[in-house]
C-alpha cells in the first residue's frame, strides 16, 4: 500500500481491474444506487420521481438520528475493544507459540461464524434470563448483565472476535519470530520485541480485522434487536429494520439512515487507509521462510485455560443452549428429563422433507457465494493493492460499502433494481437473486482478507517471474494466488458459513416458495415452534462446521503432496 507499490507487478492488473470494476458495479453499485435514489425520490418504487429530497431532509433533521448514530458508534467502539481484547492475545499465542490442541481451538473459534447471531442472542437469553437454563442448573441468573449495553457489546464481540483471531494469527505467523529475533539480538526483552517489532508489523492485519468487526457490528441486526429493544437502546440498524419491517413502511427513511451508516463505515475505512499508508508492511520477499514456533514452557497450562475459557464462552455455551432448546418438548417444561427427547429431530427429518430441502438450498447457495465472492474479492484486492490509478480507492471503498449496508436494505435495493418492468431478463424471483444478494453482502470479507495478505507481499516475486518470461496473468496465477490462497480460503469458509445462514435479506428477497435454512428457522419461530427452529439451527451449525473442516483436511493432504506455497494452519 505504500507509495511506489505500482512497480513491476502492476501490468497484469488491467484485466483484473476491469473484471473487478464490472463485477462490483453489478453486484454492489447497482443496488446501492437504488438505495440512494429511493432516499432522494421517495416514490421511485412506483416509478415516479415526485417529491424529491423532501423525505431526505425530514429524516436527517429528526433529532432521533443523533441518538441512533451515537448509540451505533458507542456499540461499534465497545464491541471492537472487547473483540480486540479477546482476540489479539489469543492470535499472537496461536501464531508464535506451540499451543497444545491448536487445531481444536481453531475449530472451536470457527463455530461462532456458523451460529446465526439472532440464534446466539436467543440462546444467551434463554440461558441467562431469570428462570433460564443457568438458573435451572445453578440457581443464579445473569439477566441484569445480558440486558445492558455492556452485555450487548460482550455478546457481539463473542460473535465477531474470531474474525480478528483468524486474520491476526495468519498475520503474526507471516511476521514470524524472525524480525523480533533480530531485535532480541540487539538486546530487547521478549515483551519489548513483541511490542516494538511484531505488533507494528502486524498493523495491516489488526487494522483490517478491527475495521471488519466495526463494520459487522454496526450492520448487525439480530443482537441489538433481541437485547437492545427491551432496554430502549436503539441503534441505526434497528431503526432501519423497523422502518422496513413495521407497517407503515418507510423505505425512503430506511434508505437515508443506511446512507448515514455507510458514511460511518467509510469514515472508519478512510482512517484505516491513512494509518496504513504511512508505512510499508511488506515482509514476504523472495527468501523462503521457515515458520518456527516456540514452546510455551511454564505458561502452557494458563494459556490452555485461556483458550478453553474463551472458546467455551463463544462456542460451547451457545451451542449447548441451542441443543437444550432443541431437546426440550416445551419451553415452559424446562430442563426436566421428562420434558426432554428427540421429538424435534424426528419431526425435522419427517416434516415432508421441507427442512431438508431448505438445508440443501442453503448449502448450495453458500457454496456458490463462497466461490463467486472469493474470486471477485481476490481479484478486487489485487487490483486495489497492486494496481495503480484513481480507480483503486474507489474500488476499495465500493467493496467495503456492503459491510455497512444492513441486509434488509441490500434486499430492498436489489428488488428495486431487478424488478424493473423494462428488464427483458431478470434473476428476480429465481434463486440467483439470493446469490447476488449474498455476494453483495459478503464481498467485503474476501476483499479484506486478500487485502491484508497482499499488503505483506513484495513486488519482487512477480517481477522475478516476469523477468523469467511469465506473462502477467501467469505470474498472478502461479505466484500471487498460491501465496494468498490460505487467506482467500479462510475468507471463503467464512462466506460459506454466513451465506448459508443469512436471514434478513433472505426473508425479503427469497423467490416465492423458496426456503433457506434461516427462513425455515424463522418460520418455525414465527409459528411458536422454538424447539423446531433450534433443532434446525443445531443441525445447520453442525453441517456448516463439518463441510469446511472436511475441505481443509483434504487441502492439507493435497498440500503435503506438493502444492507449493499452500500452508493451511
Amino acid at each position, binding site marked *: 500500500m505504500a507509495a511506489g507499490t505500482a512497480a513491476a507487478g502492476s501490468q497484469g492488473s488491467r484485466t483484473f481491474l476491469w473484471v473487478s470494476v464490472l463485477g462490483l458495479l453489478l453486484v454492489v453499485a447497482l443496488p446501492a444506487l437504488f438505495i440512494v435514489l429511493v432516499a432522494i425520490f421517495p416514490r421511485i*418504487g*412506483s*416509478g415516479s420521481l415526485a417529491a424529491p429530497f423532501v423525505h431526505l431532509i425530514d429524516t436527517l433533521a429528526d433529532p432521533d438520528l443523533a441518538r441512533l448514530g451515537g448509540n451505533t458508534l458507542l456499540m461499534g467502539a465497545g464491541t471492537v475493544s472487547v473483540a480486540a481484547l479477546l482476540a489479539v492475545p489469543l492470535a499472537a499465542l496461536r501464531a508464535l507459540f506451540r499451543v497444545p490442541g491448536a487445531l481444536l481451538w481453531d475449530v472451536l473459534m470457527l463455530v461462532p461464524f456458523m451460529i446465526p447471531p439472532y440464534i446466539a442472542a*436467543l440462546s444467551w*437469553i*434463554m440461558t441467562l*434470563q*431469570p*428462570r*433460564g437454563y443457568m438458573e435451572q442448573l445453578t440457581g443464579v441468573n445473569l*439477566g441484569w448483565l445480558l440486558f445492558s449495553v455492556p452485555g450487548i457489546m460482550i455478546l457481539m464481540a463473542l460473535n465477531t472476535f474470531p474474525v480478528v483471531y483468524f486474520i491476526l494469527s495468519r498475520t503474526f505467523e507471516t511476521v514470524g519470530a524472525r524480525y523480533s529475533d533480530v531485535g532480541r539480538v540487539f538486546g530487547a526483552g521478549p515483551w519489548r520485541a513483541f511490542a516494538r517489532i511484531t505488533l507494528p508489523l502486524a498493523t495491516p492485519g489488526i487494522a483490517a480485522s478491527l475495521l471488519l468487526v466495526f463494520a459487522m457490528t454496526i450492520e448487525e441486526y439480530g443482537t441489538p*434487536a*433481541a437485547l437492545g*429493544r*427491551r432496554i*430502549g437502546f436503539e441503534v441505526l440498524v434497528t431503526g432501519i429494520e*423497523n422502518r*422496513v*419491517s*413495521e*407497517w*407503515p*413502511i418507510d*423505505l425512503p427513511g430506511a434508505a437515508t439512515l443506511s446512507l448515514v451508516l455507510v458514511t460511518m463505515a467509510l469514515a472508519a475505512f478512510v482512517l484505516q487507509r491513512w494509518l496504513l499508508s504511512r508505512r510499508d508492511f511488506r515482509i514476504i520477499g523472495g527468501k523462503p521462510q521457515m515458520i518456527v514456533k516456540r514452546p510455551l514452557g511454564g505458561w502452557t497450562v494458563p494459556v490452555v485455560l485461556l483458550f478453553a475459557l474463551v472458546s467455551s464462552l463463544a462456542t460451547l455455551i451457545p451451542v449447548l443452549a441451542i441443543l437444550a432448546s432443541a431437546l426440550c*418438548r*416445551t*419451553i*415452559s*417444561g*424446562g430442563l426436566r428429563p421428562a420434558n426432554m427427547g428427540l421429538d424435534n429431530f424426528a419431526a425435522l427429518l419427517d416434516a415432508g422433507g421441507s427442512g431438508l430441502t431448505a438445508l*440443501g*438450498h442453503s*448449502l*448450495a*447457495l453458500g457454496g456458490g457465494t463462497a466461490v463467486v465472492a472469493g474470486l471477485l474479492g481476490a481479484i478486487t484486492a489485487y487490483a486495489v493493492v497492486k494496481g495503480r490509478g484513481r480507480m483503486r480507492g474507489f474500488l476499495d471503498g465500493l467493496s467495503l460499502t456492503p459491510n455497512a449496508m444492513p441486509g*434488509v436494505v441490500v434486499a*430492498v435495493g436489489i*428488488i*428495486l433494481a431487478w*424488478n*424493473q*418492468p423494462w428488464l427483458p431478463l431478470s434473476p428476480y*424471483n*429465481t*434463486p*440467483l437473486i439470493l446469490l447476488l444478494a449474498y455476494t453483495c453482502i459478503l464481498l467485503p470479507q474476501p476483499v479484506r482478507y486478500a487485502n491484508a495478505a497482499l499488503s505483506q507481499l513484495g513486488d519482487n516475486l512477480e517481477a522475478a517471474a516476469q523477468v523469467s518470461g511469465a506473462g502477467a496473468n501467469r505470474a498472478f496465477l502461479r505466484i500471487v494466488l498460491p501465496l494468498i490462497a490460505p487467506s482467500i480460503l479462510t475468507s471463503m469458509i467464512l462466506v460459506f458459513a454466513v451465506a448459508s445462514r443469512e436471514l434478513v435479506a433472505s*426473508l*425479503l428477497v*427469497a*423467490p*416465492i*416458495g*423458496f426456503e433457506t435454512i434461516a427462513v425455515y428457522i424463522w*418460520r418455525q*419461530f*414465527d*409459528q*411458536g*415452534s*422454538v424447539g423446531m427452529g433450534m433443532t434446525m439451527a443445531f443441525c445447520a451449525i453442525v453441517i456448516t462446521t463439518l463441510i469446511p473442516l472436511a475441505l481443509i483436511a483434504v487441502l492439507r493432504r493435497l498440500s503435503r503432496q506438493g502444492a507449493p506455497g499452500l500452508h493451511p494452519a
Partner: protein
Amino acid sequence: MKTGFLAALLALAAGAAQADVTIYSAGPGGLIKDLSAGFTAKTGIQTNVFQATTGKVMARLEAEAANPVADVVISAAWGTATQFAEEGLLLDYDSPNAATVPDYLKMPGAVAQGVAGLVIAWNPASGTPRPSDWADLAKPEYKDLVTLPDPAASGGTFTLVEAFVANGMTDVLEGLAANGAIVAGANKAALNPVLQGAKAAVFAGVDYITMGAAAKGETVEAIFPTSGTVVAPRPMMILKSTENADDAKAFVDYVLSEEGQAMVAKVFLMPSRTDITADRPLIGDLKLLPTEGAPAREAVLATFSGLFN
C-alpha cells in the same frame, strides 16, 4: 445437489411464467400452507406463496410497486387494507361466500380471512395469582414480571393502546410502566420470556398464538380481560394489478368457504363467517372496547412511548 438446485431454479422460472395465483401472506405459516394446498386440491389451480410478517409483506409489495408480482395479499393489520384502498390499489370483489361475514369485517376491496383477539397471556406456573383484567397487571404481585409487544411492531397491541387512549384508560398503561413492565419487540419476543418463566404475563398477547402454544403443551393461558378487549381482523385483498383476477377471486372464495374457514378455526383464529363454529370464544362472545375518537397513529404511539421511555 447442484442438479437439484438447477432443477429447482428451472422449475421456479417455469412456475413464474405460468398463470398461478401468487399469494403474499402474513403468518401463521401453517394456515396459508393448508389453505393453498386445499385450494389446489379443490380447483387444480397452482399457488405461489410468500409468507412473512405483515411488515415484510408490505415492504416487499412497496419495493415491487413498479412491477407488482402478487395477486392476493393477506395481512394481519386492517389498516393496510384501508391504506391500499385509499391508494386505489385494490380490486373490488364481493365473494358469494362472504354473505355471512358481518359488515365490520369487510369493505370494498377487502374481506377478513379471520380475526385475532387480544388477551393476557399468563403462565400459571409463574407463582402469581391469575389476573382477570388489564389493571391487575399493574399490581405489586406482577412487579417486573410483565412484557408488552411494542405497538409499533404489533398491530394488535397498537389497536389496544388506541382503545385505551380513546376510552380514557391510559392510567392502566401508566400503572404498568410504573410496575416495571418491559416493551419487548414483536408478539413472539414478548411471549417467549413468559413461557420460560422469566416473566409472568404478556399484556396484550395475541389469543391464537397463546392458544396454539397451550395446545402444544406449553404452560400458558389466554385470558380475556373483564373490562373488554379489541380484535384485529386480518384483511384479504386482491390487487388491482393482477393479471389473474379470476383465479385470485376463486382463492378468496375458497378461504371463505366452510372448508377454508374450518382451517382458519383450526389455528385458533376466529372465523370471519358467523355461521362457522370454533373451539374457542367467538367474536360474538367477546366484550369489545370501542376505538372511536382515538387520535392519529403518530399521536397514539407518542403517548405510548411517553409512558414507557
